[in-house]
């Protein structure tokens, strides 16, 4: 059985509907990215998965149980890093670790935190406050905090959106490495097609809102391990990339205006498995 099963998910505000009939599944250890234009409700979906928002219709089942409210089983990396500015790097992570393992003593907490600080390459910055860190380092702390509680699933809300291209690349590499090492299940929002292709096993494409939905599911067949510096040499790379960009530029609005084959109430999104 899949780790996560989502069926008929919808979010409406009064009569206005953000998205309708969203359904997908996620396997354990899978990395799924969701791409779509602003306003299609990506963040809302993530918030529902996190338990921070409630769906108007539909169910989310994780490990055979319907989720209701937030849980330590689902770690979140927030868009704006959301570190507590009065705590040091170590204490920000310790705050999460202490929430997870309440009975742990100080030494246990510290050892565990240190492991994840080292994992994201922040060794030496343990006692710095978030304000003393660069944007990239802050987001690394956010990632370390989410990984440190060892959740069943990790939810990443456009974690690299505010970073410059160079920093983003480095952290993406780190994320690839950490995910491979921990075989973490990850659901991630992104705007960046290349990022999705580097990280994801499957890419969910959302049509434009209102009444958005998952229009296509693209299986990313590029072999692992992937390297940012040579992934684009793969002969399949540009086929997939063009397909994704075409979707964002053209097809995302066609689905909405009904000019394409996507039915008003799609039960199964189109699965695209691009091979050379």
């Amino acid at each position, binding site marked *: 059985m899949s780790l996560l099963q989502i069926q008929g998910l919808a979010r409406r505000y009064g009569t206005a509907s953000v998205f309708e009939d969203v359904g997908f599944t996620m396997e354990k250890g899978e990395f799924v990215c969701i791409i779509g234009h602003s306003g299609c409700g990506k963040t809302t979906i993530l918030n529902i998965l*996190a*338990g*921070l928002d409630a769906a108007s219709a539909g169910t989310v089942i994780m490990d055979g149980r319907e989720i209701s409210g*937030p*849980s*330590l089983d*689902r*770690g*979140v990396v*927030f868009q*704006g890093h*959301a570190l*507590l*500015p*009065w705590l040091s790097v170590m204490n920000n992570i310790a*705050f*999460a670790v202490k*929430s*997870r393992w309440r009975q742990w003593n100080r030494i246990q907490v510290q050892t565990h935190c240190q492991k994840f600080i080292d994992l994201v390459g922040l060794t030496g910055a343990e006692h710095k*406050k978030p*304000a003393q860190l660069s944007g990239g380092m802050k987001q690394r702390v956010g990632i370390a905090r989410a990984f440190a*509680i060892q959740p069943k699933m990790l939810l990443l809300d456009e974690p690299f959106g505010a970073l410059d291209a160079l920093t983003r690349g480095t952290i993406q590499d780190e994320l690839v490495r950490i995910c491979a090492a921990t075989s973490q299940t990850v659901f991630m929002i992104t705007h960046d097609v290349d990022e999705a292709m580097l990280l994801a096993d499957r890419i969910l494409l959302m049509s434009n809102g209102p009444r958005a939905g998952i229009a296509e599911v693209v299986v990313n067949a590029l072999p692992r391990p992937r390297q940012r510096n040579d992934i684009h040499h793969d002969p399949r790379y540009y086929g997939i990339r063009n397909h994704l960009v075409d979707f964002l530029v053209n097809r995302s609005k066609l689905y909405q205006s009904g000019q394409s084959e996507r039915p008003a109430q799609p039960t199964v999104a189109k699965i695209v498995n691009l091979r050379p």
Partner: protein
Amino acid sequence: MRERLIAALLSVLLFSLFIGAWHLSTLPGAGGPAATSEYAKLLGADAAAGKKSAFPTPADVGRKAWQHLRDPFYDKGPNDKGIGVQLAWSIARVLAGFLLAALAAVPLGFLIGMSPLVYRALDPFIQVLKPISPLAWMPLALFTLKDSGVSSVFVIFICSIWPMLINTAFGVAAVRRDWLNVAKTLEVGPVRKAFAVILPAAAPTILTGMRISVGIAWLVIVAAEMLVGGTGIGYFVWNEWNNLSIANILCGILAIGLVGMVLDQTLAALTRAVSYVE
């Protein structure tokens, strides 16, 4: 660094100018209000004859201040206590009223800040009670509490509660949604959330409210003690007015200013200690 030095020099210069002008205007025969006023007659033959200004010279005040400083804590009965004793009474009352107000305002502010419903329900009361001059409560306090000392503590309580209450509520309501979401996704319980997330996040705003409160409390205690009498720096100033000792009044005023500054700077330092950079 250079700018600081120049500023300090300017301060010294302004102070000397002020003392100089004061000195010149209180020289014997410098005219002024003393020679003709009935008040001068009360001050003694010299003043009445115009040989001496009724208003003390800076040197007079300096001598008096030195006397007070040399022996601030003597107690020779209800009408003659050292300025230190009087200040201690006032500070004790301010701190008692202020701490009681903090005990009430911070939890209540938390409640108001967390619940829009409680906020709406209590808002009319706060709006009406806040602008009431604290001294207007004095007769009511004297009637119900039947003790002048307790009544002045109550007046301090009622005047210092509002800034703390409003700032706490505002600080708590303004805690960033992201931080609360972090606590939520980590399944942090309500008590831990209050102490580990909301309190540190709102602490700078709360402390700012406390700083405003302690400032107001120090303003009000002088007036309250003038009203109820007995002890305290406010009573001291009023008593010296009855004694017609302008020099002592000036010493009292100076002491009020200095203590007020210390209180304000203490709270400012505490605010800095809990401040954070986002």
